[in-house]
């Protein structure tokens, strides 16, 4: 392991983290919230100082940097960032317990949106900003941001590929343009522009602050709101706008780049996108139908059924976790669909979480091939994704990912069960954290939160959120002793 290089990159991550705290600090100053100002100022200074020390320690790093280093960097980077990011909550005393503060900020950075707060509205505006902003930062990834602005020499930047791969979601991460810095800039610009458009749409009905917070929550597909009732109290217009933007942010960002280049055909032919939208449309139709027939008393009109069905479908499939109506009261079939959507999640290369539509696509194809091969053992079949042959490493890697995903789920589920909540609460809370959705069902449902869990359970869920956001390997790598061997 190249510790110095890892140290250097961690220093950059922390420096970025410190800078990101500044807007919240200014807001707290403007509001004259002494507690919050103290919290942010202290956190800013500590984070900055640690970054500086790390940077000095890592001077003269060599450039030997491989996949393993990339993963360790990303895993450690996110953990450090979360630890330092929790400081403002802790020091200001607005979230007095360490585990709660950590849970809240991890939930923010991983764009989960699961909260331990019973009264969100009691927080100061600076804290609300920091919570929502953490979604926006975590959505695209901090390292990706660091890659775009970091002062790295132009020679031998091949290693940055390992960082992009480890942090970005999806089984096959590639570049849009040859230069890493440019690729990252394109991604971030797309992200910023979409966020601004979303913000402008929201301004119609909301105050600027509220619109910005909602835009952050939507863009990162996070789900932190600034009201206790999430989005239930918002106007139908705001809900519809959010529905659309949640979907837009769960599309692979490469599609937007291709659209800009005028390659609309390629976008329309994208198999993952087709699968994603097919699932979304079918789900909306089924949930609406189910609501109309099985629970006709819940909402007054078909339009309202459709609106809430689309909102909730969009919220779950994008793994945002906003709530427009208490879906816990909905019929079982609708809840089953929402649960499925939560597991599948968004497209690779988006800000959304979950298992990723493209992996579902690959697994379906592998499954069909294997059934076919059982009947015709000699048959040779190459699996094609978007017209290109997928190599066997990708296919076996995806199956392995599924197994690992289930293993993490099961172990977490057992540990959470010690708390004695209902079966569905336990399953859905683990799934909601592992897929970075946020709210689950029953005890962690639409109108509840995670405050009731024990310290152990919160720790497990924090692990799940990080593992889910970074797609398991970077976090699991840290528990592998060989990763730390000096060689």
């Amino acid at each position: 392991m190249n510790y110095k290089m890892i140290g250097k990159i961690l220093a950059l991550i922390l420096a970025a983290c410190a800078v990101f705290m500044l807007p919240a600090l200014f807001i707290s100053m403007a509001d004259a919230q002494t507690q919050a100002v103290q919290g942010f100022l202290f956190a800013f200074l500590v984070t900055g100082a640690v970054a500086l020390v790390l940077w000095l320690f890592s001077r003269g790093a060599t450039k030997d940097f491989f996949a393993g280093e990339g993963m360790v960097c990303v895993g450690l980077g996110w953990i450090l960032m979360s630890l330092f990011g929790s400081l403002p909550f802790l020091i200001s005393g607005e979230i007095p317990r360490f585990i709660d503060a950590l849970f809240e900020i991890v939930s923010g950075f991983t764009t989960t949106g699961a909260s331990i707060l019973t009264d969100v509205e009691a927080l100061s505006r600076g804290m609300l900003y920091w919570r929502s902003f953490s979604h926006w930062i975590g959505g695209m990834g901090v390292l990706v941001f660091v890659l775009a602005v970091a002062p790295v020499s132009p020679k031998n930047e091949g290693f940055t590929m390992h960082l992009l791969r480890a942090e970005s979601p999806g089984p096959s991460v590639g570049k849009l343009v040859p230069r890493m810095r440019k690729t990252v800039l394109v991604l971030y610009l797309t992200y910023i522009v979409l966020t601004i458009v979303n913000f402008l749409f929201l301004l119609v009905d909301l105050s600027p602050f509220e619109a910005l917070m909602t835009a952050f929550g939507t863009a990162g597909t996070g789900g932190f709101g600034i009201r206790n009732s999430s989005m239930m109290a918002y106007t139908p217009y705001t809900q519809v706008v959010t529905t659309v933007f949640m979907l837009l942010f769960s599309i692979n960002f490469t599609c937007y780049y291709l659209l800009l280049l005028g390659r609309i055909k390629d976008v329309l032919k994208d198999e993952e996108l087709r699968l994603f939208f097919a699932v979304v449309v079918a789900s909306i139709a089924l949930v609406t139908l189910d609501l109309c027939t099985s629970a006709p008393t819940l909402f007054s009109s078909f339009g309202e059924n459709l609106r809430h069905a689309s909102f909730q479908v969009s919220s779950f499939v994008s793994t945002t976790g906003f709530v427009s109506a208490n879906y816990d009261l909905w019929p079982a079939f609708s809840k089953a669909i929402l649960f499925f959507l939560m597991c599948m999640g968004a497209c690779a290369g988006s800000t959304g979480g979950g298992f990723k539509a493209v992996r579902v696509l690959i697994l379906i194809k592998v499954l069909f091939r294997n059934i076919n091969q059982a009947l015709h053992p000699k048959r040779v079949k190459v699996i094609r994704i978007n017209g290109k042959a997928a190599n066997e490493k990708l296919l076996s890697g995806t199956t392995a990912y599924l197994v690992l995903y289930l293993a993490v789920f099961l172990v977490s589920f057992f540990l959470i069960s010690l708390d004695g909540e209902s079966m569905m609460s336990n399953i859905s809370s683990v799934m909601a954290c592992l897929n970075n959705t946020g709210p689950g069902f029953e005890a962690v449902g639409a109108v509840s939160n995670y405050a009731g869990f024990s310290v152990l359970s919160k720790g497990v869920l924090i692990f799940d959120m990080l593992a889910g956001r970074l797609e398991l390997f970077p976090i699991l790598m840290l528990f592998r002793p060989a990763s730390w061997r000096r060689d």
Partner: protein
Amino acid sequence: MKILIAGIGKVGETLAADLSADGNSVTLIDTESEILEAGIEAYDVMSVEGNCASMETLLEAGVETADLLIAATGKDEVNLLSCMTAHQLNSRIHTIVRLRNPEYLEQAYRMQESFGVSMVFNPEKQTAKEIERLLKFPGFLQRDSFFKGRVEIVECLIDKNSKLNGISLQGMNEIVKCRVLVCVVLREGEAIMPDGQFVLREGDKIFVTAPTEQLSLLLKNLGVVTRKNRRVMLAGGGTVAYYLAQELLKSHIDVQIVEQDEERCNWLSEFLPQASILQGNAAKQTLLESEGLSACDAFVTLTGTDERNMILSLYAQNRGVPQVITKVNRLEDSKILDTLALGSVVCPRSLSSEHIVRYVRGMRNQTGAAVAIHTLAEEQAEAMEFIVEEGTLHCGEPLRDIRLKKNTLLVSIAHGTGIEIPNGDSTFAVGDRVVVVVGRDSDALQLNDIFKY
């Protein structure tokens, strides 16, 4: 600049490294996904999998907006088709094509226009040229030329009997009696940028900057016998051997080629009637001896296997052949090369890559990048040629007042037609050309990057 490299073999990979480090946007094209994978993990580049001669692949790689296509696959026909296709899709594009079959060379030059080819490169031919250059001055292990051939950096080995053994660099000028400058010393595999007090000793390899016209004087004063090569033996009869023999025969040097394959021997004999072609295994020492290895002036190993070339060279050195040249394809980076007495080492892929990098820098020269770049001392140092421009700092100031970065030397200045090996009083002005030697870890891309402030 946006550059596509098709065919990621030895040359392609070196190019990917050099061109991306130079700040270009590089896209690799190859049919093997594993090779591409290794490429994007090592360099800041993008990759496209597919056949580089097919329109679809080229379009996917963005040929329409690219500035340059380098077709470097192992197949000449594919390379040519790739260039033609690219040229049809984008008439502005420059194309560099690799051609190794001598039968195509003529038509490639004559039909350059219709093939859409801007430059042909041929690693084998370049290697042959380089070896020929080395054979002309037997005292030097490596020669790199600058200012269009008016200044060279030559590599010499200090052996036990050398006049320079145990001499400090300050004392050196009295011995060589001409103005030269030692820019790098390679001692035990490590490159050192020496100062005046540095004392040379046996086993050092020194890199000396000198005007080309003084090279023979330098050799003479160094005590190296300036004899002409009259008889050269080549081990291996591949394409390089063919080109090299052709050139050597033109300057009336006797050429013996040892080649194992009988059919190849017939071919060589047909196309090189004046050379003596020997059929047999070059690794058989009795064969080499019976054909008079010890009496040869020079021995060049050109077989397809690096290891075999190295063994043969060691043997020839051991037999006391005055000049030995070893061709190495893959093992160039290996530290072991330095520890062995292999004579001059020539690496086709680096030669081609340097040549192409120079072309690319020429294409975008307005940016102030180096116009030529040569690697020295086992790639531990680089010699770069720059043009002094309006924006260059410290114009007209004497060198002793200018602070350069660590491991950086200004080794030569060309004012118009005059060549200067600089000392503390030297200055440079706009329009001059300068050669700068920097250590490997330097990130200098422009002339101003070498100054401390």
